[in-house]
């Protein structure tokens, strides 16, 4: 089977490549790409004129909810949502029930991800740093690594004890595993449900202080500097956290960080009259934060963009604000919100955009992904994006099992139309039929 993606804008940040050209796929591998591709016989052709052809996107931070919370999401529905979002590799978080703290559960995740009903994307599990995410005893990290984890994390229940965190980092240096750190000093956040500030004071909701995030970022960066452990700071939300990361990087700490789109899209005022669809962790902050987060995205202090895809059933979200869970489903809007807020506004170039959604997250977690270069990924991983397509997001038409998102009804610009992971795993209804010639897909 020979497939040609014809006449698109090829963006491969791994090689700093930005040219108009075509990509040739033979069976499940990219074999060639470039401006003047000479092709004799092809079985199928996708006309990609005015589209971007990019390495499949890589999401370092996804909650698949299985096992334990299959009413929110399953590995099947979550990976289908990922494919529709343009992703070919996603990292799943360990805070399932039970948490991913032993090799058997890692095997389970990988088996499910590879099964035919799943979305066809690679799933790279993140192991639980401590048993049961209890913060008391380390999991058997070597066994987890052997089973296939790419990082460890205690996700939403971060280790408060600095001595234990130091030991955990020493172990991770030895095993060459990065720690993905949710940064929160929980002594400052108990009972909090939104950013501490003018809006929380007005609504009478207990606030989450920005210092809770910044103290934990500082501590984790210092421990990283001291131990040499690679630390990936998850979802930064305050300008202070960014400044600390900037400083610690300049001192040589092996730290990286991610941002989730809601944090550069909305301020805490968006909560309006207690709208719990805007309740995220860390909380939505202020315009000053957004302005400086955008600057940090532009100058590279913020390394990558993660979805923090957090499905919750509507009956769990439609409760009084303080009782509602944190998080939002994001996978199927990541390209659209990122392009709408960052690329079309000039914060990021197209190449930088793809870098932060694909190449850099792959590099941080050392995944075989994030490039179009033949042989560097196990199979061809490609997303074709129409950067200028205007559409209105309807959460009723998503693959994700949960519909908790504040983006419902939002007009967006940019959409992934085709995803390949070995073969075509997703074709959007808005991809014009006239652009395809070849055998009908099942």
């Amino acid at each position, binding site marked *: 089977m020979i497939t040609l993606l014809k006449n698109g804008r090829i963006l491969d940040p791994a090689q700093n490549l930005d040219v108009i050209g075509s990509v040739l796929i033979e069976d499940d591998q990219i074999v060639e790409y470039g401006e003047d591709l000479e092709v004799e016989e092809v079985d199928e052709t996708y006309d990609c004129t005015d589209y971007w052809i990019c390495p499949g996107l890589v999401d370092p931070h996804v909650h698949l909810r299985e096992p334990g919370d299959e009413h929110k999401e399953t590995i099947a529905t979550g990976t289908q949502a990922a494919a529709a979002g343009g992703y070919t590799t996603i990292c799943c978080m360990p805070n399932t029930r039970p948490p991913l703290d032993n090799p058997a559960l890692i095997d389970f995740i990988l088996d499910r991800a590879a099964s035919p009903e799943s979305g066809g994307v690679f799933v790279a599990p993140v192991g639980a740093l401590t048993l049961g995410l209890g913060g008391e005893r380390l999991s058997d990290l070597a066994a987890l690594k052997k089973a296939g984890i790419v990082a460890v994390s205690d996700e939403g229940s971060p280790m408060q004890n600095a001595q234990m965190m130091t030991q955990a980092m020493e172990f991770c240096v030895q095993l060459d595993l990065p720690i993905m750190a949710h940064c929160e000093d929980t002594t400052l956040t108990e009972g909090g449900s939104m950013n*501490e500030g003018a809006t929380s*004071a007005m609504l009478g*909701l207990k606030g989450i202080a920005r210092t809770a995030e910044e103290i934990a970022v500082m501590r984790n960066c210092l421990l990283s500097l001291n131990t040499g452990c690679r630390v990936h700071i998850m979802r930064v939300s305050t300008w202070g956290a960014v400044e600390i990361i900037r400083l610690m990087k300049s001192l040589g700490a092996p730290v990286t960080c991610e941002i989730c789109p809601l944090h550069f899209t909305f301020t805490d005022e968006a909560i309006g009259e207690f709208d719990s669809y805007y309740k995220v962790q860390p909380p939505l902050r202020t315009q000053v934060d957004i302005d400086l987060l955008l600057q940090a995205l532009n100058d590279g202090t913020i390394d990558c963009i993660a979805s923090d895809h957090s499905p919750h059933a509507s009956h769990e979200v439609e409760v*009084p604000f303080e009782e509602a869970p944190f998080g939002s489903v994001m996978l199927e809007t990541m390209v659209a919100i990122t392009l709408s807020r960052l690329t079309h506004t000039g914060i990021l170039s197209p190449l930088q955009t793809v870098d932060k959604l694909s190449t850099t997250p792959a590099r941080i977690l050392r995944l075989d992904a994030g490039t179009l270069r033949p042989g560097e990924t196990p199979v061809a991983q490609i997303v074709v994006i129409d950067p200028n397509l205007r559409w209105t997001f309807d959460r009723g038409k998503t693959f994700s099992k949960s519909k908790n998102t504040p983006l419902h009804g939002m007009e967006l610009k940019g959409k992934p139309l085709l995803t390949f992971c070995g073969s075509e795993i997703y074709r959007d209804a808005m991809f014009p039929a006239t652009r395809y010639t070849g055998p009908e897909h099942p």
Partner: protein
Amino acid sequence: MARNLLGIRQLSTDEIGELIKTAAEYKARIEANKPVPEIKNKVIGMLFFENSTRTRMSFEQAAHYLKLKTANFVASGSSMSKGETLKDTVLTLRYERLSGLVMRHRQSGAPTLAARFFGGPVLNAGDGRHEHPTQALGDGLTIIERKGQIEGLKVAIVGDVEHSRVARSDAWLLSKCGAEVRLVGPRTLIPQNTSLLPGTVFHELSAGLADVDVIICLRLQRERMEEGSLSSLNEYAKLYQVNRETLRYAKPDVLIMHPGPINRGIEVDDTAADGESSAITAQVENGIFVRMAALHWVFAGEHQA
């Protein structure tokens, strides 16, 4: 769309004026043994998810004068203690054909959520730290009775502003009606950022009370010491108690108010609570008339729609 009373923040000055004026008329009629307009063929649900004797009784009395039937919802032992969500409870009550809901809840915003699903009028009888609109309306009526008007008055709200729904509702009402509002208390009990709340912050009682016409004392809860917001009740009383001594900072004819229940000897002393300047009992009584006005107002809004 049903008309709700979820907070003072969303009301216009005209709406506040209308509600207080109607309450004053009802009060005059009842004191003269004249009939008041009734609300017939309706049943209002009383949903008190948090303990309340005063507000609940006041709403019951208001309904009694209006010949409005009430149906009590007992949260403990109800379907909610069996795990039913607030949304499902409210939907059930909607199809039980209740005409409206009076709701008290310990979580800020819970009545807002209920109003989204109920479809008829919802009156907030106090939600978390957010608002207690009928308390503020009663306080407004009391101030107008004793001072003639609200506009131009200096009002100090003293104590645990951070955790007080009464403070928020009173501050909105008084500032919308043209008073100068002061939020007075220790740094630990006043929100750090008050830029979206009305009022000017004072941490010194003497400065906060200087030249004020009205003092609204807030109840101090003992839990605040466990959180480290206060060292001791004794120290709090020394710094912030409204008493014979500290009243000298205010105007000679200052009015003293308190939403109750009072911690005597902590936020107020007997002189302040029981003296001629005190309007505390008037606040309780006026609470009934403003709740009558509020019930009429939400149902009238429904007919207009």
